[in-house]
């Protein structure tokens, strides 16, 4: 089970880093030898081996089975589990002797270091990503770029499940039947919106059917079997809508019961003016067509058909002249105007079908059209056999009496629900043995790039580079990354990566108490999100330092948000770039209203949530959740009136069970207490003055957010966390232990290049996990 350790891995891998930042202890030089016999074994012997040793091997674990140092890397899963048990206090059980906090931390740290001893110069796996279904954003964007207009067809799709904070994790993108249904419905909607099924080269025909006629006496005229029967001299009228003035061709399909010397005589009038009289010589069984041209004015006209010469004689001396003459009208077609200009076809149509095939050329045209379309939709050249199967849809449509374009519509629908479109494939066909590593081909790489930076399919330039085999060239790759980041489509990286990394999407769900925070409204909610998006966008497009996320001297505000922040001189709904002076307390995402609100409770700030958010998103070290059944705080109740939140939290931390984690979280959160639950500045919390100072577990103390930001900024932890988050997003999988090598290399690059945004992206895109894949088979 290769993926079982993902969750644990992410936490473990990062907790090492955080231990270096805020934990006590000296940083080990890389390669420093770890002495199992001296450091871990005595602790295991004291606390673990009575159940997991020679005597008893509960859960099949025996810590006394080792001759010398255990093979930590080989037994990674086992040791991660051991570490998790110790870290989360699951072990030793409550009724056994407990290690001290220091001993517990030492065990966790030892295993961390033992597992981190990875030789990055040797063969390191690039990992393997399961085929990825397009998530909602990717589906929308891909359809937009493939078809040419923005349908937002995924609006009604069920939401994609989130793992590691992102909704593009391959193994979580499942396909329940309801989603398949939505895909089918969306494909039909897209195909019918994009392609016009009936293309009119001729002026349109308006058909007046017999049942649309009105008439009086049923003895004279009546409807029989869908035909208008005129049995005696009389008239029938029908409304006719004329779209525009012009020459029209009126075609009547009629026949008669012939009797007497004359044929039935049919008069056609419009608005009471007789335009044409026909002798209807056709008989039942060979319907005649009677046609004339006339000029019609636009608007509602009245069409009239009249039977002029009824004849019914049964007693004539000449039996040939006996008979009943009747007139029958099957339909009246009005075609025009003659100078009709076909409605321009939508761009989506002409893009797919540039011209209609001449007769006899339809299959050749279909082949070309569908080859182009499928190759773009599958994001690699479509094979001849694939195209032939698609062309069959055109044959099917023709066989069913449909048009050429209807056939193309069908083929487009089929492509849009094919697994080749809905999933991103990196097939291993014809490759070497299981567990081996291969570089991605140029088309696979183009897709990885475009879905990473644009959440969409590759564009023409990427496709051409792939076709020419140049995309894998590192210089070309770098140039492409720079181009793609400047392209408007990179806003997807802001919406989907930043929106999830910073949890901006959760801003939609916060519900500050309207009584306590009457200022909070929809415009403010929208403005908060916009500020952070624009800020991220600026760092990305201007290729600024990642450290500015923590501390920056600019932001983006509109009037509403500036007022909320107490910043003067910004008016109106438009956002503008604003330089932040030394005197303001704002600067960097930690002081953005969005983050401060998303981490608050509906009724008050939550320093714990804010601290936890910083640990998770900035320092990459999510704390474990509170143990269940936290003991009651006896102080609560009356102290709520008599002690500040900080004092109450400090009482909480007096409990050693709580202290380990809260000592990490709370100081980080309290640093931002000057910002209330919707991010507005304050100096008092109720009756209590705010004290934003704190001390980190490592001993560093600070007084307020500015000083804390300086501490966060000078550590490598934030940058490494940022790399991990973005690498996770770029790959669509959780990081594995071996990804540490890639993270290290990207980090070194960033340090040498002023932590520039583009260096991060290029570092990811040129890393082994991004450029290569391990073949299916080896399960580690």
């Amino acid at each position: 089970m290769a993926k079982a350790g993902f969750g644990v891995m992410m936490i473990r891998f990062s907790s090492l880093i955080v231990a270096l930042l805020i934990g006590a202890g000296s940083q080990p030089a890389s390669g420093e030898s770890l002495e199992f016999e001296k450091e871990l074994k005595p602790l295991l012997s004291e606390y673990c081996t009575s159940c997991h040793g020679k005597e008893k091997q509960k859960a099949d674990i025996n810590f006394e089975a080792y001759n010398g140092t255990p093979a930590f890397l080989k037994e990674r899963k086992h040791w991660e589990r051991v570490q998790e048990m110790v870290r989360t206090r699951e072990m030793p059980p409550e009724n056994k002797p407990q290690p001290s906090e220091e001993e517990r931390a030492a065990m966790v740290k030892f295993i961390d270091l033992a597992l981190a001893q990875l030789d990055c110069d040797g063969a390191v796996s690039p990992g393997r990503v399961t085929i990825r279904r397009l998530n909602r954003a990717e589906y929308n964007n891909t359809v937009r770029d493939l078809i040419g207009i923005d349908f937002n067809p995924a609006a009604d799709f069920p939401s994609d499940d989130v793992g590691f904070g992102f909704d593009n994790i391959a193994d979580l993108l499942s396909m329940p039947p309801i989603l398949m249904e939505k895909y089918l419905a969306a494909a039909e909607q897209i195909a019918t919106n994009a392609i016009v099924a009936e293309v009119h080269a001729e002026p349109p025909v308006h058909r007046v059917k017999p049942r649309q006629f009105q008439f009086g006496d049923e003895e004279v005229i009546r409807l029989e079997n869908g035909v208008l029967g005129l049995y005696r001299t009389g008239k029938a009228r029908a409304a006719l809508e004329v779209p525009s003035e012009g020459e029209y061709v009126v075609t009547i399909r009629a026949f008669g019961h012939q009797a007497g010397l004359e044929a039935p005589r049919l008069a056609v009038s419009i608005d009471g003016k007789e335009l044409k009289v026909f002798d209807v010589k056709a008989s039942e069984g060979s319907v005649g067509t009677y046609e004339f041209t006339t000029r019609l004015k636009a608007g509602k006209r009245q069409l009239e058909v009249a039977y002029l010469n009824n004849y019914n004689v049964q007693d004539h001396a000449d039996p040939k002249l006996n008979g009943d003459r009747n007139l029958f009208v099957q339909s009246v077609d009005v075609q025009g105007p003659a100078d009709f200009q076909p409605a321009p076809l939508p761009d989506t149509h002409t893009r797919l079908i540039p011209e209609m095939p001449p007769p006899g050329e339809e299959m050749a045209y279909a082949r070309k059209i569908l080859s182009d379309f499928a190759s773009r939709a599958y994001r690699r050249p479509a094979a001849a056999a694939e195209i032939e199967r698609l062309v069959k849809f055109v044959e099917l449509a023709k066989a069913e009496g449909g048009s050429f374009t209807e056939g193309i519509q069908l083929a487009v629908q089929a492509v849009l629900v094919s697994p080749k479109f809905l999933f991103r494939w990196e097939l291993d066909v014809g490759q070497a043995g299981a567990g081996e590593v291969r570089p991605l081909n140029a088309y696979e790489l183009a897709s990885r790039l475009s879905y990473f930076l644009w959440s969409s399919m590759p564009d023409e330039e990427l496709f051409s580079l792939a076709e020419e085999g140049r995309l894998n060239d590192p210089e070309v790759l770098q140039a492409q990354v720079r181009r793609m980041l400047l392209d408007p489509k990179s806003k997807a990286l802001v919406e989907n990566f930043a929106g999830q990394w910073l949890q901006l999407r959760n801003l939609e769900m916060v519900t500050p108490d309207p009584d306590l925070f009457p200022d909070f409204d929809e415009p403010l909610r929208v403005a908060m999100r916009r500020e952070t998006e624009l800020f991220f966008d600026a760092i990305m497009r201007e290729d600024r330092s990642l450290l500015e996320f923590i501390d920056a001297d600019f932001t983006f505000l509109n009037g509403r948000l500036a007022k909320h922040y107490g910043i003067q001189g910004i008016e109106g709904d438009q956002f503008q770039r604003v330089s932040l002076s030394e005197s303001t307390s704002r600067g960097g995402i930690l002081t953005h209203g969005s983050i401060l609100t998303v981490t608050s409770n509906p009724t008050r700030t939550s320093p714990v949530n804010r601290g936890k958010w910083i640990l998770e998103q900035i320092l990459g070290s999510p704390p474990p959740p509170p143990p269940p059944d936290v003991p009651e705080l006896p102080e609560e109740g009356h102290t709520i009136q008599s002690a500040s939140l900080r004092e109450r939290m400090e009482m909480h931390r007096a409990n050693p069970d709580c202290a380990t984690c809260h000592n990490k979280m709370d100081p980080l959160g309290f640093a931002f207490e000057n910002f209330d639950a919707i991010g507005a500045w304050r100096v008092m919390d109720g009756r209590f003055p705010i004290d934003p100072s704190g001390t980190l577990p490592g001993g560093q103390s600070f007084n307020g957010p500015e000083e804390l930001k300086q501490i966060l900024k000078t550590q490598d932890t934030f940058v490494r966390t940022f790399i991990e988050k973005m690498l996770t997003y770029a790959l669509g999988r959780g990081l594995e232990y071996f990804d540490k090598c890639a993270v290290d290399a990207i980090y070194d690059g960033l340090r040498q290049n002023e932590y520039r945004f583009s260096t991060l992206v290029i570092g990811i895109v040129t890393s082994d996990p991004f450029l290569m894949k391990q073949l299916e088979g080896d399960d580690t």
Partner: protein
Amino acid sequence: MSNRQEIPRRTFLRGLGTAMALPLLDSVLPVRAFGSSSAAAKPPTRMAFLFVPNGAHLPDWTPRTVGADFDLPPILQPLAPLKEDLLVLSGLTHDKGRANGDGPGDHARSAAVFLTGVQPLKAEGAIRAGISADQLAARVAGKQTRFPSLQLGIEPGRQSGQCDSGYSCAYSNNISWRDESTPMAKETNPRLVFERLFASELQKDVVENQGKRAAYKKSILDFVLEDAKQLQAKVGGHDRQKLDEYLTSVREIELRLERAERAQRIGELQGFDAIAEYGKEIGDAPDSFEDHARLIGDMLVLAFQTDVTRVATFMLANEGSNRAYRPIGVNEGHHTLSHHQNDPEKLAKISRINQFHARQLAYVLGRLKSIKEGEGTLLDNCMIVYGAGISDGNRHNNENLPILMAGKAGGTILPGRHVAFSQETPMCNLLLSMLDRMGVHEPYFGDSTGRLPWLEG
């Protein structure tokens, strides 16, 4: 069909939080074979699960007395008019919701285990649980209906961030699992539920365009099945599993098309155009929780009433939900409050939320009971289980879960009682006994140790 015009459309399906005029629909619905008074056809048994998050305040939930003469504590008060239809089941346990060595993450685990009885794999980037009881039932009962099952909810999945301690959000957002790795996504928009059931394109194809368009749809499904089969030969491992999910879903849609055709052929869809017409009044999810819950509840009832499906799940909120229930005066988030530390004020608010949720259940049960079916009511032919996967939100314990059942399952369950089981009785025993009643006879389910006794009285 002349009576259709007599029903004022405006009174229909407004989602105003008051009982809607759906009963009027009875007049336009087809009389089903089992609905006739002839004893020839027995109405089918329906199964639904209504899930609530974050446990319950048990002292206000558990009746003090057992047997038929049981009392209704505050949380169950909204169900007073339905007392004779309730079977309160105390003492059930989901052992696989406990850590059992997996460490923190009780919320995620409690939802994942609720209907599967399986300890879920602890991972953020991979999901493994097990097939849920409703899906097992749907495999059999679903053969008779156009939809094998229906998944409903109020809250869409979380859009970012962590859900619970190293568990993927999939575990907290779903209780229905088609297989160990495919959670059945739920629909939270009442309009979309309605369209899917009664006004879908798929159905229109069958009803209106029996010829050409149905042939087109089938040819598209054939095409993609062929694509998938070709790929299947080339992949293994997790890729293969994803492709299998895809294939299963396409096949289910094929089946649905066939069933819709059959239903049309034998005249079962008669009257559905009337329902579809009225459904135009249904909007997207309203802001008010109660309006939303009632609309979704109406969809569940309508689906059972029209026998579109016989199996459904309805999550009143996702596990760990931190919704603030302002209309009942609770401004703090539900999850935050559930860590109540025995603070009486917080406990009172938890109890109020629990009662508010029970009120939504009362609405659904009341609607089911108002509909005549066969010799009794629709509710008589249902077994509706309501409850949570956690017992106390503060302790995160998984024994003595707040669980109750309603309906008679066609006379095989005797409600109107409170039954207290011995501690550690697996909740899976209940699920196994319910499966029996759906015609699924398994030797065991999850960690079941046998059938649950005393359901019949």
